[in-house]
């Protein structure tokens, strides 16, 4: 037996208890989502037949469509808001030396860590003051503003990898600073901006406590709040619909995240650890 084969067996054997625990909730979600309604409350693992139509039935039963639309609206607009504020800031942090630069970075590092959770009562008053309670735009604003620190730091660490020479060459050729930025720098920055935007999107997509606080009527619910409302404080829960909805709300985003996860790690590593 080769050394690598031996290592493979040992590694998978050691990891297997953890893998079982990790896969277990996904299995519960998927198996429940495909169980026929009358079998859901029976404590069996496997359904007698696969009820794919749960995925169709859950759509009206869980009010999935409007909540999906709210989630997309909130995640997209808050990301756009954060990027509009953070792309220029990240560019400045990276390309210019100015007094207060170090201080601004420290401010971002600190505010990136301050979770909205401890500010939620103040945020609630802010939203009431702005007259935006029960309005999805309140959540757009709060998510966007809270995302700025993360997006600036992440963009900044990637902008550092874009060579400065190209912009300088454009200046020498007589391009204005603005032109050099738009024609030379931004196209090179698009991958960094895209990756940062996706993480900002996913954060907004998954957020819970702000949405729970600011959105009180079902028309304004985002997906996590909508699905939570089907479970919390109810005596009868249509678990097969809830699990089908959870599956659809979760899996596409999870796949994108798993695929891009290494960029987040690199961004975090450049931004924080290194």
């Amino acid at each position, binding site marked *: 037996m080769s050394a690598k084969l031996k290592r493979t067996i040992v590694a998978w054997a050691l990891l297997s208890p953890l893998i079982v625990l990790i896969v277990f909730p996904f299995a519960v979600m998927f198996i429940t989502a495909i169980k026929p309604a009358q079998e859901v409350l029976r404590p069996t693992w496997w359904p007698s037949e696969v009820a794919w139509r749960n995925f169709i039935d859950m759509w009206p039963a869980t009010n999935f469509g409007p909540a999906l639309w709210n989630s997309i609206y909130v995640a997209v607009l808050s990301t756009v808001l954060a990027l509009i504020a953070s792309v220029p800031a990240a560019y400045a942090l990276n390309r210019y030396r100015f007094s207060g630069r170090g201080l601004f970075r420290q401010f971002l590092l600190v505010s990136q860590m*301050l979770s909205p959770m401890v500010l939620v009562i103040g945020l609630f008053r802010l939203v009431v003051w702005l007259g935006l309670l029960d309005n999805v735009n309140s959540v757009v604003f709060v998510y966007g503003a809270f995302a700025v620190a993360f997006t600036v730091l992440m963009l900044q660490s990637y902008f550092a990898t874009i060579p400065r020479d190209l912009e300088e060459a454009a200046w020498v050729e007589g391009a204005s600073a603005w032109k050099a930025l738009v024609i030379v720098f931004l196209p090179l920055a698009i991958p960094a901006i895209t990756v940062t935007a996706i993480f900002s999107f996913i954060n907004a997509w998954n957020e819970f406590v702000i949405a729970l606080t600011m959105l009180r009527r079902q028309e304004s619910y985002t997906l996590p709040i909508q699905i939570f409302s089907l479970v919390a404080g109810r005596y009868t829960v249509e678990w097969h619909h809830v699990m089908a909805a959870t599956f659809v709300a979760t899996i596409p985003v*999870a796949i994108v995240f798993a695929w891009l996860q290494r960029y987040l790690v690199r961004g975090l590593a450049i931004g924080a650890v290194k």
Partner: protein
Amino acid sequence: MTRSPVTNPYLLVLPGFLLAAFIILWPLYQLGTISLSEVNRFGQLRGFAGLDNYIAVFTDPDFLGALWRTLVWTVGIVFGSLIISVPVALILNEDFYGRSLARVIVMLPWAVSLTMTAIVWRWALNGESGMLNSGLQAIGIIDTNIQWLARASTAFPVQILIGVLVTIPFTTTIFLGGLSSISDDLYEAARLEGASRWQAFRQITLPLIRPFLNISIVLNMIYVFNSFPIIWATTQGGPANSTDILVTYLYKLGFRFGKLGEASALSVMMFALLLIFTITYVALAMRSERQ
């Protein structure tokens, strides 16, 4: 070159700075004001109250219970995930068949929102129909159904376990970053000197990933201390507030019991605590940056 807004760093930084500062400072100012005022349940301020709200928080037995559980919760999850993540990162750093698949599986819990994870677990832990009970019965570990979420003595440990499970991916990732920065030559040299694997781990790996351990501990403390969805979506702090931690207790104070003064006082104190953690983190991060 002509002056243009693009060359003025302060103008470029300003919108981001204003937005990020406003969203923290405005609510913080509000919290400070309310916490020092007498306030009715509709949020109207009724005059200066000194430290009454702070004293009311500290004399509430529910607060002391939540405070203690927050300590157990935070320390349990941070060190639980640390103890599991170090060996997992060491394994994932080895070269074996299917390593990239193993990495994807270990990272999975990070990809799913905490709310959804907690809702799935709430169902899996259901006393009569939950698949955890039926799974454990099928392999003979238990013979009667356990009402996991009905009592704090089973609910809270299970919640901590879920917390550990969702914290492992991030922690492992940080350690993998640390491990990949250690050059193979060091291990080669240690082997030539006749060091055992355990000695190599103690003398080479551990000291070199120490900064990464520190960063992960501080970051996880901040994240876990603030973590709301796992407990809220499984038990909402119940039964009878017995699984409340500070964040869920804070939410109830403010939005269920309408005690806005006390809730604000608690928020201010939690904010201060968080700030201390965060400054520790920034100091650590800056130190490793300078090295």
